[in-house]
């Protein structure tokens, strides 16, 4: 799996003329992705790393980000939709709207500002049914619209690499990984991870994001080994603590069609 992901990472870097950026939410998946990117380029990542900051993240996340920016010598871009943050956008004003403004809009602005052609993302097919339908290389038009009823063919390892103007491509090197694969790999490689994932007072976060919109799950897994054991037997889905995945049946589809990650 590591080999296939590194192959995909290198393929996108070549096809998009080095005009690429990786999105790092500081969660376990995008940190694993960052780890693989470091491997693909022998520790010297030749492009920037982008953090879309909503201002609602956990303190632990900011601390982790700043520590590893230094240790891994990252060229880190932090982008915020200041306008929306100043105007007081909060999840209480509607989650669809809040995610769209603080995440999707902010990402759109960042891509426009820097003109990146391809964006590496750590999404996985097993996270959510809508993501299960993704391609490894997935085009978005200038409005970020995902034309999911007419995706390009993707045969073997030949990915869509030519773009119409004003399009960008989402590159998904971890698409074929499961949550359990991620944790097994974190253990094997000893990848540093934000400690919100480990149980404290019988609660831990299985998926992290903005503080107001994620809930911890009951768990006593305070080590990676215990998390792996827990996942082997759990019957609760990974993103069950995520507000934007539920609400109504198609909210994730709506968010993603608008360009959400």
């Amino acid at each position, binding site marked *: 799996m590591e080999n296939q992901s590194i192959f995909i990472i*290198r393929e996108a870097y070549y096809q998009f003329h080095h005009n690429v950026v990786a999105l790092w939410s500081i969660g376990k998946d995008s940190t694993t992705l960052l780890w693989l990117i470091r*491997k693909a380029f022998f520790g010297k990542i030749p492009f920037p790393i982008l953090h879309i900051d909503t201002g609602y993240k956990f303190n632990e996340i900011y601390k982790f980000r700043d520590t590893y920016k230094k240790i891994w010598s990252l060229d880190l871009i932090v982008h915020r939709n200041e306008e929306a943050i100043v105007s007081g956008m909060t999840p209480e004003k509607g989650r669809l709207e809040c995610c769209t403004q603080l995440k999707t809009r902010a990402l759109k602005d960042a891509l426009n500002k820097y003109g990146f052609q391809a964006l590496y993302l750590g999404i996985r097919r*097993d996270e959510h049914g809508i993501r299960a339908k993704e391609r490894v290389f997935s085009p978005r038009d200038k409005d970020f619209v995902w034309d999911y009823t007419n995706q*390009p063919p993707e045969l073997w390892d030949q990915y869509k690499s030519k773009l119409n103007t004003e399009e960008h491509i989402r590159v998904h090197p971890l*698409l074929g990984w499961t949550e359990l694969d991620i944790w097994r790999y974190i253990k094997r490689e000893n990848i540093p991870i934000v400690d919100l994932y480990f149980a404290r007072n019988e609660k831990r976060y299985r998926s992290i994001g903005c503080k107001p919109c994620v809930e911890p799950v009951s768990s006593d897994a305070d080590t990676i080994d215990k998390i792996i054991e827990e996942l082997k037997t759990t019957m609760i889905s990974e993103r069950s603590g995520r507000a934007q995945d539920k609400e109504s049946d198609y909210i994730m589809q709506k968010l993603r069609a608008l360009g959400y990650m």
Partner: protein
Amino acid sequence: MEDRGFLKFVIVGHIDHGKSTLIGRLLVDTDSIPYDKIKEIEESREKRMDGEIEFAFLVDHFREERERKITIDTVHTFFETPKRGYVIIDAPGHVEYVKNMISGASQAEMALLIVDVTEGICEQTKRHANLLSMLGIAQVIVAINKMDIVYYKEEKFKRVSNEVRGFFTQIGMNADYYIPISALKGDNVATRSRKMDWYDGPNILQSLDSIKLGSTAEDKSLLFPIQDVYEIDGNRIAVGRVEAGRVEAGMEVKILPEGRKSSIKRIEKFQEDRERVVAGESIGVIIEDPNFIQRGSVMCVEGKEPIVTNRIKANLIWLSKQGFIIDESIRMRLSTQEVNANITCIKKRIDSSSLEVIEEDATRIGNLEIGEVEIRTEEPIVVTKFNDIQELGRFVLVRGNDVVAGGIIP
């Protein structure tokens, strides 16, 4: 029992023959669905009349899919048996979405073909089987579905399974198993059905577990297509994935298509010190004369070279509404190589459903047609037969920004 391998298979078949339902059933019966997801579906508005949960909703997530009750795009889902992990690739059955079906099938190592016992072979059954055969997927399990509707009668199963067997013989395919099932009720999926005592073969899960995993290309001769060359700390590192054989520090290599000789100075993997790597690994190498290597170069061992040619006989499937007219210039991508090419001869144009030859010595090829063609490339490229090393025996054709055909070198 011990295996703990990993198998990717695609579920194909005609629209409404029950692909999504079978996947839902497999996921539920292997405890792969978190209970909050099952609850979500149970509570969803559109319930089935018979009170069964809509298994198909576990894979058909798009609103358009649920409302039209069809699968539009391919989906990958995961489940495990005590023996190994599986990825199920669900392929849409509707003719409009054949390109999605092919995208799914191209990622699979084997296939499960589902046929509705009340309808038998239909148009997409044939097309999908033909495309599997064209894509080189040799291992197939046939599930005869909806046995509950025909009261689990053996003669109904026999009639349809014989029909499929006859069709497979015509197209030179061979199924490993024919299994009577009801995906909706769960008969012969994860457990043995008590309603079909006349059947003593394996259920779906047992049949999957009995499939032998493909051998790796490790024991073949070296094929290492170069993906890119990086300048790092004054070194030129050629990176890529080893598709066959082994790379060892110090070994002599030949670089195709030019045929220059060089040797491996060092193998590069981040924070690993390796003397030897094998097929499947993504690596970097530093060679003696690093200036002669670029994306598309293929390293091999002298005396065991693949074919270097500018004329390729191939079978392809056309995947664009805009067809092809002979002598149009097109791009060909094979492994990491990309060259200008021409289809100079279309020996046969074949209907991908009926397999009828539409035309011989044709001058054009249309959407969803299979072509037996000859391709001429502007520059020589490195290829193998598909059955030797798949990665160098398959290709896509690109027009403008789009992939318009996929093919293999038989």
